[in-house]
């Protein structure tokens, strides 16, 4: 079987020689990873340009759907017979992701990417702690493989409701010095939240930088702990997006800048932000105890 979209075949790829582009991408593999779905696309140009923390947006054709669905990049491969591939992880939460879950090998899907700002990598060797909630683990495992290649110490904490919602524990163990798991129901690792084990890991690993991805309340809690330890913390947010390319101003996050708090676009100025500068108070997730949950604050990446 030859690839439909291969390097050098530019007819189905539109865009510039750098930055995001749009391509019709063949599905190379569709697999289940725990309770989640993973799709691998043949996308050589995107694989070449992608960095950990960036995302792609996929056109879906579910009932009544109109907009693309954004997904963090889980892994890329730049070599092999398929020239280059990009893999995403998702959960079926609505008609868009249901349609996507029905794609199988050789189907062709309309993909735009890579989009957004990647995780900034440390300039010098430092002990890195990666904290993921649910399938928010996906971009962190991509980051972990980059950090491993650079020889940085990496510790990983993954948290979820239950064991089947922990994404890829095996890969997390393989890519880290230590891997901790927390579940709400105690079916894997420590019963509780990721923040319950953070202090211990930070002390043992002498953590110098924290990276996190997951639901907003988890990112808020992780940012608060990081601030208490005076450790820089980069978080990748999962905000609902309409366009993913910076033109609709839907996916904004209140962010402190010199001029004051501004609503920045998570698709363009993020999805990776300095967790210490997100205005968690405004999102109802401040450090002061028992704020009411903000509407939509725990919205998954795919709201439909």
């Amino acid at each position, binding site marked *: 079987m030859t690839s439909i979209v291969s390097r050098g075949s530019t007819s189905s790829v539109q865009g510039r020689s750098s930055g995001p582009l749009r391509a019709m991408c063949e599905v190379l593999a569709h697999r289940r990873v725990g309770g989640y779905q993973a799709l691998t696309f043949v996308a050589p140009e995107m694989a070449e340009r992608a960095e950990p923390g960036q995302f792609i947006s996929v056109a879906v054709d579910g009932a009544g759907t*109109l907009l693309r669905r954004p997904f963090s990049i889980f892994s890329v491969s730049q070599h092999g017979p398929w020239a280059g591939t990009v893999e995403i992880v998702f959960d079926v939460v609505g008609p868009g992701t249901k349609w996507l879950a029905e794609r199988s090998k050789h189907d062709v899907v309309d993909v735009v990417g890579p989009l957004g700002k990647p995780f900034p990598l440390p300039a010098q060797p430092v002990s890195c702690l990666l904290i993921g909630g649910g399938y928010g683990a996906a971009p962190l495992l991509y980051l972990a493989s980059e950090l491993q290649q650079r020889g940085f110490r990496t510790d990983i904490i993954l948290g979820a409701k239950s064991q089947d919602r922990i994404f890829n524990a095996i890969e997390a163990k393989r890519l880290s010095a230590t891997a901790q798991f927390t579940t709400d129901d105690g079916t894997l690792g420590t019963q509780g939240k990721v923040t319950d084990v953070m202090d211990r890991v930070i002390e043992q690993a002498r953590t110098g930088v924290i990276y996190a991805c997951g639901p907003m309340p988890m990112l808020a809690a992780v940012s608060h702990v990081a601030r208490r330890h005076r450790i820089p913390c980069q978080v990748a947010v999962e905000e*609902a997006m309409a366009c993913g390319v910076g033109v609709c*101003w839907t996916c904004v996050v209140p962010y402190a800048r010199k001029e004051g708090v501004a609503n920045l676009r998570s698709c363009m100025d993020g999805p990776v932000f300095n967790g210490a500068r997100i205005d968690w108070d405004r999102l109802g997730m401040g450090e002061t105890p028992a704020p009411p949950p903000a509407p939509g604050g725990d919205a998954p990446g795919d709201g439909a």
Partner: protein
Amino acid sequence: MTATDPAVAPARTLRPDQVDLRIDLGPMVLANPFVTASGCFASGQEINRFYDVNRLGAVVVKSITLEPRAGLPTPRMAETGSGMLNAIGLQNPGIDAWMAKDLPWLQRAGVPTIVSIAGKTAQEFRILAERLRGVPGIIAIEANISCPNVEDRNIVFACRETATKEVISQVARVSTVPVFAKLTPDVTDIVSIAATARAAGAAGVSVINTLLGMAIDAETRRPRLGAVMGGLSGPAIKPIALRAVFQIHQALPDLPIIGMGGIRTVTDVVEFLLAGASAVAIGTANFANPLVAAELLDELPRWCAARGIRSVTELRGGLRL
């Protein structure tokens, strides 16, 4: 599509490059009928990552206000059946920052620019238009008198003839470029509002803005938008938009119309032209496909050529009744 042998091809078939895409928009001539719907294209730079946006007839930028606006709380968007609701709340950096940061790029890139302005009062609209006087690269002003996402929905100017007249006359009086009035279909009679805008000095109208709508999450019993209500756009509103363009064109056949509302395909474009639009604006479709406007710009001449249509202006108001 390539040139076909004239001996076997139907006599009327043209090559796409023989199709004249230029259109008159009142006192302006655009290279082609494609513009962008305000608020769906930012100020062009983001989409320019995908293609040269200066190929478009014009870029209509996201509405600019006098002071910076932070916009409304999230969630700001809800996907609905064949459409979407938005409640952004005119987030923008304000006219000063926009002229310092965004305008220079548009000028350098040679993008014909239509500046959408939004004020809380007629006086604010006038001040905005004054700031834009004689600025190179700006070919028109679009007065956004119909944004549904304002604090006081009773001040949607385009819902009342008196308010429409006041804003448009103030803007037209000071503007050095043609003024387009952006209208809402959320009125009893859009034709009378369009006629009022024209009488007040508008060179044309942009039709339609989003319709006020809402969506509810049955499980949480909460509105799906932070601002409760928002503007509906996308294919769901196309029939309403076509109707509005048609009604205005029937009543005021000389009034230039930028038609918009759910345009996604080349036949959508043609339908708006047939209803009476001179140009079309691509809005929500940009969200689903950042390249859509460029693709339609490539497709329209092919569509026309295959049907022997030499100039897109032939289509305007060509509806057979």
